[in-house]
C-alpha cells in the first residue's frame, strides 16, 4: 500500500522532469523572466505541496470524502487568480472575453463549492451537537 503512494509521487515527479529539462534550456536561450533557479524553486514548491497534500488527505475521515471533493473543487478554483490577471489587464477584447469566461467558471466553482460543502458538513455537525 505504501508502495502505491510512492508510485503516485514518482509519477508526479516524472511528469515534472521534462518540464525541468526545457525549463533550464529556456533560461539560457529564451532569457525573459523565467530564470532557471526560480523555476527550480517552483518545482520544489510543487513537490513539497504534493507531499503535504498526500499526508493531509490520507487522514481525512472516510465519512467526509464527498464534502472533501467539493472542498478541493473550490480550492482548485484558485485558477481565479489567473483569470483575474487575464481579465483585468489591458489586453485585446478577445483575450478579455476569454479571461471573463474563465473568471465566471472559477468563481462559480468557488461560490457553489464552498456553499455546498458547508451545507453537507452542517449535517454532520448537527449530529455532533445532538449526541452528547
Amino acid at each position, binding site marked *: 500500500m505504501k508502495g502505491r503512494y510512492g508510485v503516485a509521487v514518482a509519477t508526479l515527479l516524472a511528469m515534472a522532469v521534462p518540464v525541468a529539462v526545457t525549463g533550464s534550456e529556456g533560461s539560457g536561450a529564451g532569457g525573459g523572466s523565467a530564470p532557471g533557479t526560480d523555476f527550480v524553486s517552483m518545482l520544489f514548491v510543487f513537490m513539497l505541496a504534493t507531499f503535504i497534500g498526500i499526508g493531509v488527505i490520507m487522514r481525512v475521515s472516510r465519512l*467526509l470524502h*464527498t464534502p472533501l*471533493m*467539493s472542498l478541493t*473543487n473550490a480550492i482548485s478554483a484558485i*485558477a481565479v487568480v489567473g483569470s483575474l490577471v487575464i481579465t483585468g489587464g489591458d489586453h485585446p477584447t478577445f483575450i478579455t472575453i476569454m479571461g471573463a469566461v474563465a473568471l*465566471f467558471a472559477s468563481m462559480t466553482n468557488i461560490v457553489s463549492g464552498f456553499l455546498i460543502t458547508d451545507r453537507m458538513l452542517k449535517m454532520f455537525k448537527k449530529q455532533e451537537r445532538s449526541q452528547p
Partner: protein
Amino acid sequence: MSGPAIQIAYLLSTALFIFALHWMNHPRTARRAVLAGVAAMALAMIGTLLGFHVVNWDWIAGAVALSFVVGIPLSWVPLTAVPQRTALSHAFGGLAAGLVGTAKYYLWLSEGPENLTPFRVMAIVVEIILGFLTLTGSLMAAGKLQEVRWIPQRPVTYRFQNQSNLGLLGIAVACGILVVLRPVEFSYLFPVIIGLALLFGVLLVIPIGGADMPTVISLLNSYAGLSAVAMGFVLDNKLLVTAGALDGSSGLILSIIMCRAMNRSFTNVLFGAFGKAQAVAASAETRTVKTETPEGAALIMEQANHVVIVPGYGMAVAQAQHRVRELYDQLTKRGVDVKFAIHPVAGRMPGHMNVLLAEVNIPYDKLVEMDDLNPDMPQTDVVLVVGANDVVNPAARYDKTSPIYGMPIIDADKAQMCFAIKRSMRPGFAGIENELYYADRTFMLFGDAKAVVGDLVKQLAESGAAHGVPAAAAAAR
C-alpha cells in the same frame, strides 16, 4: 500593494488551504475547514487584484455577478445529485484553466515571441491539454450521471478503442512538442491541440460504466488540480502551484482508494471497458428467485437482534434515505441493533452514501466500513440490501470469469437471512448477474426502494401499535 506584500498574502492563503484540508479529518472540525478555505480564497483574490493595475473592472464585476447567479442555485441541488454537480464543477475548473492557458499563449504571441520560452510553452501545452480534456470528460461524466438522454449510459466500446484513443493523445502531444520547439511557426497547431484534447476527453469517458464513476470523478478532480499547477508554472505563481497540488493529490488519493476498493488498477478502470462480460451473463439460464412481502420481512426484522442495512445507488435514485431513517427508528425502538455497511464505491462518488445518511441524521458511528463489518456478518440476523448490487455480489469471491472477480464485497450472503430490495431482475449498471439473489437465504422485495422501505416502516408501526405480533408467525417462515 507591493510585491512582497502580495507574496505574504499568498503565503497565508496557502497555509489556510492546508489547514482547511487538515480540519477535514474529523466531522467536529470540518466546518472550520470551509471558513479557512473561504478566507484563503478571499486573501488570494484581494492580493491579486491589488497587485496590478486593473483596467477592466466592469468585466470582472460582470463575470463575478453572473457567477453568483449561477453558483448559488448550483449549491442547492438535492444531495442525490451531488455527483453530477461535482462533475460539472470539474468541467468548469478545466474550462477556466484551458482558457487562461490559451489567452496567455496568444497574448505572448502578439506581444512578442521572445516571451514564449520553451518552458512556458510546455507548461501552457500541459495546462490546455489537461484543462480541455477535463472539460469534455467531466461534461460526459455529468451527463451520464444525470442520465441525459443523448449520452449513452452503458459503456460504449468499439474495436481498437484504446489504440485509437492513445493515438489521438499521441498526436496531441506531438503537436504540443512542435509548438514548444517553434512556438511562432507552428502557432496554427495550437487550436489543433485544443480540438484533440476536447475530443480525447469525450472518448476517455464514454467507455466507462456507471459503476466506475467514483474513480473517474476522483481522477478528473486530480486533473483539474494539475491543470491549476500547470497554470501556476505558466504565470510563475506559487499559490496556484500549491493549491493545485493539494487538489491534485487529493484526487489522486481518492482514485487510489476507489481502485483498491474494486481491486482494479487505474489502467483497468480507464481502458478496461467494464461492459464486455454482458453477453456471457445474459446467456445464463433463467433461474428462480424467492420473493417475500414487506409484511413478512417486517415481521422477521422485528424479531432480529442484529440488522445490517447495505445502501447503494438505488437508495439515492429512489430518494429512499428518509424512509430508511424511519426504518432505523422503528427497529432501534424495538431494541434491534441496526448498522449500515458502507462499501467505498457504493453510489456514484466517494463517500456518497455517508452524506445521504448524514442528511437524515443517522449517527455516523452506525456507518461501518466494509472491512470492519464483514467479520460480524455470520452473527447478523438480517441483511437488508437497499439498492446496492455489485458490492454484495458473492461472484466476486469465486467466479473467475466475472468482471468483478477479486473485488472486496460486503458479505451479505453470509448473514442468517438477506432481503434485497430491487425494482426488477434486470442486471445492475455493470450488467452483471448477482449470485446473491439466487442464494438459499435471500428473499427479494420487488419494488421501488422508497415504496418498499415505506411499507416496511408502515408494517412495523402498525404492529408496534397492535403491540406484539406472535413470534410464531415469524418463526414459521
